[in-house]
């Protein structure tokens, strides 16, 4: 949320409610409903860190509104975030840790763990593909496709784990 707000403020100064609307316009169905309190809390932290500053603007018939703008440090922070590649997707390490340790300690049959994990992935895949019908915008369609491809890769990798264990591989 921090960087999303910095990015939105780099376009133009805005008050909290406008930022909520802008986030919803960009991500709509992809993010759960954004709570305006959460936006103000994040803005407060950004201000304390010197990344944004606020000014009260008087309004004719309503209380003053607080308008936020990016500081030079905020712009710098945004540039660093934008320019940095996101970390590559990690191996699902919790399952992998379980698989390795449980079979080494002989507290579980690795094939049982693999089967259980596969069932979970398959059910997840079904849920994600069901979502495709509700994904109307381009961003939503790309997000669904990404989730499907990740799950397909995870399932393929489980197949590899299974082959390794069934052909009697030892750690």
């Amino acid at each position: 949320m921090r960087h999303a707000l910095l990015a939105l403020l780099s376009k133009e100064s805005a008050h909290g409610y406008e930022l909520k609307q802008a986030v919803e316009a960009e991500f709509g169905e992809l993010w759960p409903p954004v709570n305006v309190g959460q936006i103000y809390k994040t803005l407060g932290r950004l201000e304390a860190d010197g990344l944004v500053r606020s000014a009260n603007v008087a309004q004719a018939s309503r209380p003053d509104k607080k308008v936020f703008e990016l500081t030079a440090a905020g712009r710098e922070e945004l540039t660093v975030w934008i320019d940095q590649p996101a970390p590559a997707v990690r191996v699902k390490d919790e399952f992998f840790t379980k698989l390795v340790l449980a079979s080494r300690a002989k507290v579980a049959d690795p094939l049982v763990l693999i089967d259980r994990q596969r069932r979970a992935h398959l059910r997840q895949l079904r849920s994600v593909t069901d979502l495709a019908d509700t994904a109307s915008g381009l961003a939503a369609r790309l997000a669904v496709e990404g989730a499907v491809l990740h799950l397909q890769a995870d399932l393929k990798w489980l197949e590899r784990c299974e082959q390794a264990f069934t052909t009697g591989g030892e750690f």
Partner: protein
Amino acid sequence: MAVLRTVDLHRQFTVGETVVRAVDGIDLTVGEGEFVSVMGPSGCGKSTLLHLLGGLDRPTSGEIHLGEVRVDRLKEAAWARLRRRRIGFVFQDYNLIDDLSARDNLELPAVFAGASPRQARDRAGDLLDQLGIGAKAGALPPQLSGGERQRVAIGRALVNEPDLLLADEPTGALDSRATTEVLQILGRLHEAGQAIVLVTHDPRVATTADRLLTMRDGQVVDETPLGGRRTALALGDLLER
């Protein structure tokens, strides 16, 4: 009554000195209107299983019941007559007759199964319309795209209103868009009450079913129920914030 039931089904092949147990003791029940998919790596026996169910191959031992009829003991001709009416088969490579129009590819099996030419024509026309290719009824299969050909093949499989639709890698030759179309068609058929057994190595295709069986070395080693109440997932759960 189950649409299909197998009891301890086996199919062995002898290759030189080696006996290959392609299907090794499968008990499968497909309920009325149920959609079951079978997934597994190539060589796990899933296609052999489907061929046994569809009468394209005969079991070494075990039973196959289609509704109330035990079919594994039927003579070749009787089994052929029965499956023409009660089983529809969809293949990966369509298996259409290339010098017959799409419409004629549907009419032919209807006439074979006893429909009058008029009935066959009506049913073929209706089905092609429902499958969204009514406008191409006169085209020859080589003039159609892969997705269109598979829709014709699905129409052919359905023309005699079978109790059971069998599909062997029906999207195996299709691109992602045509795959989605075929999956939507299968989903609609299933909603309308069609019982389906589908074999695939693609998890996305397999998870459209009510129940997914995983096969390995001729045996069903795992079962994943997918129908009914599913994980309520929202688009908002897909992305990290």
